[in-house]
């Protein structure tokens, strides 16, 4: 048993490292050469849980991470996924400012410590109205002001509705930041601190990784996850199911545990979008903070913890 425990632990460590790296696609273990390599049994056994629920033992040398979907060309990244129209619904009645979405997002995209792609605003619309927590992502507008002003097409609109950034093309003029009314964009003021294996990677506008100094970044709706059929990091990180993500064409959104009709959700819960008067036509919808799961004050605990930790 003792012998078995040790390799298992190190195996988990490897999975963690692999997971970290695949978040941003590092080198591909599924090249022709890698697949044809003959593998010698190492004698080290690892216990695993099979899909049928049995515990099985496998030689460690035969273990391989699951095949990632192959990375696609930059042109394909800019095109987006045909037939899709991504949409997000944020349910304000469930948000208690836990910031798990923010943590997961920052972690997955190597966002610098001082910055956040997702912000959870403490909102109060007027003196006598109730305060609430409002997470904001990029709105992935259908009339994106940032794309209009970009002089070099470094920020672009994909056919699936996602607004992406090519950090290898961005000249760092920051006009898009001035243009965005949602203050969603951040600038890499200094050289990002990155693990060496991430630093070596080719930039992908699907993951917005690795972030480049002197360029603009923002929430990208995690199109790499969408291509894999998975949910954006913020959606799966939220324990309260605040974020629904889905496809407007299929009229379906899911927060991971419930899958609902987008149009029903918006109709029944009076969904709306932010700053409609700007004419930006966002693809992020909000459900008003009625019948809340938590009182507003619950969210203040996170704020207090945050200040204590600092």
């Amino acid at each position, binding site marked *: 048993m003792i012998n078995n425990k040790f390799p298992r632990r190190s195996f988990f460590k490897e999975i963690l490292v692999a997971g970290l790296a695949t978040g941003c696609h590092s080198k591909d273990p599924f090249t022709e050469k890698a697949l044809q390599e003959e593998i010698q049994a190492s004698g080290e056994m690892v216990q695993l849980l099979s899909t049928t629920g049995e515990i099985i033992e496998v030689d460690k040398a035969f273990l391989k991470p699951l095949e990632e979907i192959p990375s696609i060309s930059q042109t394909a990244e800019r095109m987006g996924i045909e037939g899709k129209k991504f949409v997000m619904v944020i349910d304000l009645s469930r948000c208690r400012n836990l910031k798990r979405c923010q943590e997961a997002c920052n972690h997955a995209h190597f966002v610098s410590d001082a910055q*956040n792609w997702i912000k959870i605003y403490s909102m109060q619309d007027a003196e006598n109205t109730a305060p609430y927590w409002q997470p*904001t992502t990029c709105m992935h507008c259908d009339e994106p002001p940032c794309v209009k*002003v970009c002089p*070099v097409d470094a920020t672009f609109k994909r056919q699936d509705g996602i607004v992406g950034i090519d950090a290898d093309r961005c000249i760092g003029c920051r*006009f898009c930041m001035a243009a965005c009314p949602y*203050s969603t964009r951040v600038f890499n003021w200094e050289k990002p601190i990155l693990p060496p294996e991430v630093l070596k990677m080719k930039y992908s506008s699907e993951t917005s990784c690795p972030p480049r*100094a002197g360029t603009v970044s923002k929430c990208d709706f995690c199109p790499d996850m969408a291509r894999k059929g998975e949910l954006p990091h913020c959606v799966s990180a939220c324990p309260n199911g605040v974020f629904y993500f889905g496809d407007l064409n299929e009229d379906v959104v899911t927060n991971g545990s419930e899958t609902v009709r987008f149009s029903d959700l918006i109709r029944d819960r009076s969904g709306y979008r932010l700053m409609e008067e700007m004419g930006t036509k966002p693809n992020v919808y909000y459900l008003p903070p009625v019948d809340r799961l938590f009182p507003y004050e619950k969210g203040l605990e996170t704020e207090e913890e945050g200040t204590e930790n600092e």
Partner: protein
Amino acid sequence: MNNTTSISADKITSDLLPKPFGRPGKIWTSVLIVLCLIGGIAYFRQLQQGLVVTGMRDYASWGIYISNFVFFVAISLVGSLISAIFRLTNVGWSTPLTRIAEIIAVSAILFASLIIIVDMGRPERLFNLMLHGRLQSPIVWDVIVITTYLVLSLLFLYIPMLPDLPILIKKSKLGSGLNKMYSFLGSFWKGTQAQYKLSNKAVLIITIIIIPVALAIHTVTSWLFATTYRPGWDSTNFGAYFVSGAFLVGAGGVVVAMYVFRKAYKLEAYITERHFDRMGKILVMLALLYLYFNINEYLVPAFKMKKAEEHHLMGLFSGEFSMIFWSAILIGMVIPVIVLLFPKGRKPRTMFVMGLFVVVGAWFKRFLIVTPTLLSPFLPMYDVPENYMHYWPTWEEWSITVGSLAGALLIITLFARYFPIIPIHETIEESANNKIEQL
């Protein structure tokens, strides 16, 4: 001009020929060079470490680089005002001021282009503007009109100077570097009838096209702001507002330069008190015009006090920026108007001070247009470190900005050192014409 009638052509030539620097000139030039070098060092640091050396952050994402850029573009408009508008409206007295105005325009627009590169996060990707440029972006419009204006301004400086170049060639030592430069620039000019006809025609064409191009550079620059949604920028008045402010600061700059050149090169016979008096009246008119647009820009939104505007306007009127705001209005507009309304206020020395007021007020006004708006976003400033919520330029930013201003002054200074700052040939011709009229 009446007071130049008694001066002979030889006297005019020797008066207006460029002269070596005296002691003050040498000190002035060295100070400018040192300031440029400090700016260069600061920029080197910025290139190494990135824009993190500036005080800009995600909210105040544009700072004094951009406001300095707007300032440079603004002051460059004076070239078209004095040289083109006055020429077309037959304002005869402006001849001695045309070249001063034009060199201010050229050096300002040159440094406007440089400072915008300084503001870029990835200056080495400048060529992306050619490779991937998209015509729908106002930045691309700005690049196009500013390049056009730079070329036109250079021609507008050069072509009217052609008849002066043979004089410079004759007067400089044969075989010296200067002589070679003058020869390179103008040895082809023989002063024939055909050449004059051609150059007059060229000048007339430039005079006409430079006016819309000048209006375009500053209108398009104003659109960098007005095409966004932000409080304080979201205005249909912005083009006219910027252009009127540009004429004001440009005229102020010319007044300052007139005074300095007059003193340094003893040009009292050419830049007379009447020139100051007239420029003073023009300054009053332009300051009132700019004040009018300011009242429009601030009073109308303040009357409504929409939610997004409130934070911005209160910051200017009584908050974080109120000191700079009221100083810029008073120093840049109100005080010059009051002082210059009196004939005594239009004497050279007070004019010089008022010109400085206008220019300094205008510089800070540009800062007020750019940064306070960015610090009034629609969603509250939130979830960022404390230093993201305010803006104060770092020493690197100040050094680069001061260095760019010094660089522009250095170009003007060096130009006046090697070229006649008042057109020699035109002055002789006008003086002769006046004699004939008197006979």
